[in-house]
């Protein structure tokens, strides 16, 4: 093994079959078997079996299993290429590694099936139901099932190993085909919604089976289409293409961005009209969390202040709106409604609420911010976490229940209106439009501030607080500005949330909400506006929010597990996020960039030229 990285690349000999790293294969196989057993034991297979991906033979439950041997086969065959080393030659040994890994995984998993079939362990592991055994044995008896799993996993592992061997282009083709089909199957509800809106139901009637899932025919056709697209696609990675895009002249880039923004705005205006209630509900939830994410992104992403109590400002916005509008809140008599450009009534009354929410959120930002702002890093995180909980408990307390209603919260929040158009909480479409308006404002705010005196001060603060101070930046004031800006955006999100739900309860403002907003920002890409949107779409749209169901509703109870797994994977593989800001990417990749530059001989690090 060792000798190979030093071997000259001019000797393209395929390594002998015997040169398999057996220890690694054994480890990968056992891990894969454990992973399979874990997924089955937590009940994922049984629950996700409800959702058919490809009718009639592949459910989401089985899909949750089949990726495991493929993935472990792939990693068992691969060898980490040391930085700057020469990649080892791929060959039959990779296939063998994958095959054996898969077979081992199947073997371990068969043991697990035999185990749960023989002993009744439902007392301890409540998810090991007879239904699970039926699913895992395909109703065929244990011997046949074991054989199926061993052979099946071996073949899947072989596929994983093969993915190491085939050319990049073929790999791209296959991955596009699989991912494409999976996405279309996942988006079933949205696509049917859309086709009904566009009156092209006959397409989806063909694509999707009656009781859910793609039909086999449609799956094959889609696979072929996506595969062909993947085969034709360029061999550049997303980041490389992005790099190229960014290095275009500024005017070209600006024009392209304008076009993209125009398309996005048109989509935001027209898509909700076409799609049905379900998609609109998803869109409204995503919009709400984009707004929250953009606010937190200013605090965490731009200024580098880790705020774990962000939900407090969301709660302040929601409760402020509830008290001003609900007829059931006793301490504010002239009940207002969120009525912008009112026809009949007082023209400004909606704006008063906006102004009060803004002021209250800003005040709470200052109140929470001032005592904690001198703390750094971990200390700040812990203290803000505490403040977030304090705010929730205050809203919950008996002491303040005459004002906030305690655990019963404030209900009967009336619907909002823009001119003659009523915005009912039950109509997701109108809520989405309201959210979209505020998201656009938030994007504008975030974008303008990025390259301004304030934005630069935030960056400096994030990079080195002491030095920022030496550069004449009043770090306390600048931090507080970030805190308040974030708080105001969260306050607006709270306002929309109150109207959407029609009532506010302390239970809606748990720590979990802060964490989920933070995960959106991290997964999307800290400091990146587009990243927040991508993060919210992926997490809230697909997996679902703290209480809101997402596209994969079946994931419901496993949502937090997936969030956690996703976060760990992101931290290991792509710490800068799905759509990182340029600066953040630099920060986390700059050693790699230097390394690459050194390897390829292009000067990334400028050496002192002899020009003077």
């Amino acid at each position, binding site marked *: 093994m060792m000798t190979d990285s030093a071997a000259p690349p001019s000797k393209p000999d395929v390594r002998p079959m015997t040169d398999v790293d057996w220890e690694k294969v054994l480890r990968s196989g056992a891990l894969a078997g454990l992973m399979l057993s874990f997924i089955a034991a937590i009940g994922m297979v049984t629950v996700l079996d409800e959702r058919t991906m490809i009718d009639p033979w592949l459910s989401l439950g089985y899909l949750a299993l089949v990726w495991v041997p493929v993935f472990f086969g792939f990693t068992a065959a691969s060898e980490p290429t040391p930085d700057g080393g020469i990649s080892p030659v791929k060959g039959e040994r990779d296939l063998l590694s994958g095959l054996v890994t898969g077979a081992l995984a199947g073997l371990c998993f068969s043991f697990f099936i035999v185990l749960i079939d023989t002993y009744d362990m439902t007392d301890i592991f409540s998810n090991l139901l007879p239904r699970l055994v039926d699913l895992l044995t395909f109703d065929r008896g244990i011997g046949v099932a074991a054989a199926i799993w061993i052979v099946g996993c071996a073949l899947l592992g072989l596929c994983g190993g093969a993915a190491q061997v085939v050319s990049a282009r073929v790999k791209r083709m296959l991955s596009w085909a699989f991912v494409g089909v999976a996405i279309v199957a996942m988006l079933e509800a949205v696509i049917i919604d859309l086709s009904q809106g566009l009156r092209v139901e006959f397409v989806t009637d063909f694509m999707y089976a009656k009781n859910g899932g793609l039909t086999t025919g449609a799956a094959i056709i889609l696979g072929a289409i996506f595969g062909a697209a993947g085969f034709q696609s360029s061999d550049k990675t997303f980041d490389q293409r992005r790099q190229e895009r960014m290095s275009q002249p500024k005017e070209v880039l600006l024009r392209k961005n304008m076009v993209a923004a125009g398309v996005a705005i048109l989509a935001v205006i027209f898509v909700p009209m076409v799609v049905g209630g379900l998609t609109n509900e998803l869109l409204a939830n995503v919009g709400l969390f984009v707004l929250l994410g953009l606010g937190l992104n200013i605090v965490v992403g731009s200024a580098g202040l880790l705020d774990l109590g962000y939900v407090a400002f969301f709660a302040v916005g929601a409760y402020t709106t509830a008290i001003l509008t609900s007829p059931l809140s006793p301490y504010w008599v002239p009940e207002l409604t969120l009525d912008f450009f009112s026809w009949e009534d007082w023209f400004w009354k909606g704006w008063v609420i906006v102004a009060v929410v803004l002021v209250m959120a800003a005040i709470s930002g200052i109140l929470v911010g001032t005592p904690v702002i001198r703390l750094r890093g971990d200390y700040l995180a812990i203290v803000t976490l505490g403040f977030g909980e304090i705010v929730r408990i205050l809203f919950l307390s008996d002491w303040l229940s005459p004002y906030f209603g305690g655990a019963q919260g404030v209900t009967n929040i009336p619907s909002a209106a823009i001119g003659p158009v009523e915005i009912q909480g039950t109509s997701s479409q109108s809520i989405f439009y309201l959210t979209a308006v505020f998201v656009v404002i938030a994007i504008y705010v975030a974008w*303008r501030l990025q390259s301004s005196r*304030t*934005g630069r001060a935030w960056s400096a603060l994030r990079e080195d607080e*002491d030095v920022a101070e*030496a*550069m*004449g930046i*009043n770090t306390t004031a600048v931090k507080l500005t970030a805190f308040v800006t974030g708080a105001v955006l969260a306050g607006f999100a709270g306002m929309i949330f109150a109207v959407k739900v029609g009532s506010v309860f302390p239970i809606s403002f748990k720590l979990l909400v802060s964490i989920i907003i933070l995960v959106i920002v991290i997964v999307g890409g800290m400091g990146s506006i587009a990243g927040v949107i991508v993060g919210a779409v992926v997490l809230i749209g697909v997996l679902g929010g703290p209480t809101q169901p997402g596209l994969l509703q079946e994931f419901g109870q496993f949502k937090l597990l997936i969030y956690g797994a996703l976060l760990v994977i992101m931290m290991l593989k792509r710490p800068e996020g799905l759509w990182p800001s340029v600066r953040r990417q630099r920060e986390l990749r*700059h050693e790699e960039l230097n390394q690459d530059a050194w390897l390829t001989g292009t000067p990334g690090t400028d050496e002192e030229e002899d020009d*003077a």
Partner: protein
Amino acid sequence: MSHILQIDQLRKGFGGVQALDGVDFHIDKGEIVSVIGPNGAGKTSFFNTITGYFSPDSGSIVFNGLNIGGHEPHEITGLGIARTFQNVRLFPNMTVLENVMVAQHSRTSTGIFGTLLNTRGFRKEEAEIEERAKEILSFFGQRLKGYRWDQPAFVLSYANRRRLEIARAMGTQPELLLLDEPTAGMNPRETAEMTELIDRLRTERGITVVVIEHEMRVVREVSDRVVVLDHGVKIAEGTYETVSTNPDVIEAYLGRPAEAGSA
């Protein structure tokens, strides 16, 4: 009076260690003064106390007639004292130009509302900030010019990082600049260039400079006056020639001669 900075009986201790033990110091406008001394003599503590990172235990620091002892660092920067750091501390992920732009924070004023409303004042100020940053960077000749403007600071070579740090300090538009070992780790050619640069700071920019330096050739060439610190105490002051032959200074650097030690 003509002293731009006047320090009397400055003391600063950390527990048992007396980093500064009654230091008197003054510098006139347009002067270049070197502060030298063996490692641990209190040179950097001296800078940190002047710039507000440490508040003095006793003694006064008077800058342009104003006692600045105990003020916040950003206030002191605002009054016109800038500094660099011994171990270069740039904002590595910001571009070269942004590094100098951000330094003008205390000389500019647009807040959030001006930015959001994109007022004329904001646009004018942004343009001025950028213009001034480019002008400051051009002080370093071709070193930090052109394509370098948009490069992140971490790609710069070591010597260029040192230069950028000085450029950033110049961005705060100081009257008094404190340079903490500006030539540390540089090769002889770069050191010579830096020596010339320090002199140009005074002649072209009118900046008064205090420099901590270990490289004696630099000290000899740039300084009008040399102050020697040892164990928080000023042990000598004067021209390079007088200081370099002062027996106390030699003792501080090399230790007591053997025959004197036995006495």
